[in-house]
């Protein structure tokens, strides 16, 4: 079977699985800080964390772009698990020659300027760095992109912390602890594979980009349904032009965001995803803010309650747009390159030739 067929089948399976099992109760429990073990077991059983691993190593053998596209469905259902992080960690680690990682995994660095350094310590490899907001960092195996004294990049694997770090969660209640690597000894280390060449921040941005597009789609679905059902002044509020125009604007933001998310997936085929990831995270982060604003406005006070499910999506949108670089950080990276190259170079860059 062609890999795009496999990925289409996997996408449908993923969607059905998550639609059934990521219930309101599961989301509410995860919100309260509980690790959804049964849900993780189900996702693992479906083979999703290993999507990017070659078939002979027990994975689904999807290309990174195909595997990441599944995360739109995870975003749609607000899946409260480090699925994308684990997929990418497995993809990177196996690409560098390692064995598949057992259990949930996560990625670092998560912020610009948070470099991790490698030193040798009595035949072992020690890591130094301050990591902020590591997704599920309290329980996941950590894959760090780190640099040695000679300037070479490596992937280092660290077991989950023995002493639980101070609790820190994002706006959606997802664990995002800070981790201090003060000479932590790596369980294993390998040269960084080509997939890591654009950096961990770009990979994380590509991941959050897909999740945000999925979450936006679901928030819009909610808003469209509500606008057609909720009656005021004797008719559905969706009949009012003011409401229609807000939702049309949100649809435009969503369409542009989808195009940007497609752009970074396409860039994986070319090798360097840095600029495409920057464009995607910048454009989608902006759209996410607007779509969250509009979908809440349409829902009125009902959407502001804990009882309604809209916030499971919008709190994630507000969190994810700030993770792995916010809009301004990525815009600045693009702007710096464009300004250095000059006005005449912009069109060839956009056209790809």
């Amino acid at each position, binding site marked *: 079977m062609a890999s795009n067929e496999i990925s289409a089948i996997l996408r449908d399976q993923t969607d059905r699985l998550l639609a059934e099992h990521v219930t309101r109760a599961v989301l509410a429990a995860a919100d309260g800080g509980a690790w959804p073990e049964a849900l993780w077991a189900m996702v693992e059983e479906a083979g999703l964390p290993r999507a990017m691993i070659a078939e002979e190593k027990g994975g689904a053998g999807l290309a990174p772009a195909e595997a990441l596209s599944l995360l739109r469905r995870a975003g749609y259902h607000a899946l409260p698990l480090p699925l994308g992080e684990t997929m990418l960690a497995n993809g990177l680690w196996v690409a560098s020659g390692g064995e598949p990682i057992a259990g949930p995994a996560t990625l670092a660095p998560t912020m610009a300027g948070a470099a991790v350094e490698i030193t040798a310590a009595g035949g072992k490899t020690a890591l130094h760095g301050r990591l902020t907001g590591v997704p599920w960092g309290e329980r996941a195996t950590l894959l760090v992109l780190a640099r040695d004294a000679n300037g070479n990049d490596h992937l280092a694997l660290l077991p989950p912390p023995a002493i639980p770090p101070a609790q820190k969660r994002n706006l959606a209640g997802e664990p995002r602890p800070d981790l201090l690597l003060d000479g932590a000894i790596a369980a294993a280390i390998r040269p960084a594979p080509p997939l890591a060449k654009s950096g961990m921040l770009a990979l994380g941005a590509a991941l959050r980009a897909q999740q945000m597009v999925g979450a936006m789609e679901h928030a819009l679905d909610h808003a469209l349904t509500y606008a057609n059902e909720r009656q005021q002044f004797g008719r559905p509020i969706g009949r009012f032009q003011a409401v229609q125009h807000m939702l049309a604007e949100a649809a435009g933001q969503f369409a542009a965001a989808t195009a940007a998310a497609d752009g970074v997936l*396409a860039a994986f085929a070319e090798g360097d995803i840095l600029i495409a990831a920057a464009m995607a995270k910048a454009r989608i982060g902006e759209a996410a803010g607007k779509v969250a604003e509009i979908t809440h406005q349409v829902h009125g006070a009902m959407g502001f309650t804990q009882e309604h499910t809209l916030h499971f999506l919008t709190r994630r949108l507000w969190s994810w747009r700030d993770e792995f670089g916010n809009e301004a950080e990525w815009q600045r990276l693009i702007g710096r390159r464009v300004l250095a190259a000059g006005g005449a170079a912009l069109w060839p860059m956009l056209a790809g030739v």
Partner: protein
Amino acid sequence: MQAFRFDAIDLPPEAIAARARVRAFLAEEQKRRDFVAYRNSWNSFDPDFTRRAGAAGFIGVTWPGEYGGAAQSPLVRFVITAEMLAAGAPCGAHWIADRQSGPQILRNGSERARREILPRIVAGECYFAIGMSEPNSGSDLAAVRTSAVRNGDEWVINGQKIWTSNAHRAHYLIALTRTGEAGPDRHGGLTQFIVDLARPGVTVRPIRNLAGGHEFNEVFFDDYRVPDDRRVGGVGEGWRMVTSELAFERSGPDRFLSDYRLLVELIERLRDAPDPRHEIVIGRLVAHLAALLRMSTAVAGLLDRGENPAVEAALVKDVGTAFEREIPELARLLVPSQPSFDAEDPFSQALAQVMLHAPSFTLRGGTREILRGMIARGLGLR
């Protein structure tokens, strides 16, 4: 949610080849220094340029060979037009004919009209205007009142069109006329005709725009007689035809590249000593542009497959023109400069040009409000 069809498109080899050809052509044009890119927009009218573009094979490329075209994919045309606009080439003379009038005649015109008109458009020698709007029929296009009455092998047209860009220098316009009852859906009874602007019975009067320019006009029909074989499509089919034409009109690169040259000049002004704020604003605009380019390419792909992506086209135009209108507002705050046509620097001239034309971006080809209504319908809200 009703999925929009913005599927990623891989450009076919002929589109990639066309890009190289059009760039070589534009490089030659720039050497001639005939056009000043930063003072142009796609509606800059230059018959000499259009003739050379026609001779080089860049007009009517999607049409069959028997009418002078090259039977190429809409994606080839997409690449050609995007390159032209990005270079600031003055495409105004052939733009309407190439974008919508020619395709309309090809699909719905008589064989005689096709043979007489299409090869001249391809050669860059024949220009069109759009005869849709009327004084009481702007956004409400179905309210058209200009009448066409059958008289043997002819039709007699009476009434008035307005906002008719280039009617004073185009050879033809396609007039949307009332030939029957509107019916309960208000969309019936409309028929299109090719009007030869050089023939008696039609009078063109200029309307100056706020920039002092003369682009649009009033057009009056006074017993204007048109042969039946200048009818475009069936009697009463006008509504369906104009709405399908709008997908071509609304999704192209002209809906987000109108002031691309201002962006280029802004980059040139900032590049020597950029500060973080400059970098952030430029990066944001470029990220927007990249997404729009993908959306617009995807719609060209849908047109290539013979689909009618009306809602997707409306989305491209709504998002694209909002982007166009942001550029001057951001640019003026990053570069303290008083926009003026008399300034010596390209940036100030480009800013003057865009500032005075920006209001039209979100009006022409369907206002933002009409587009949002169409999108809302596509979303199932109407």
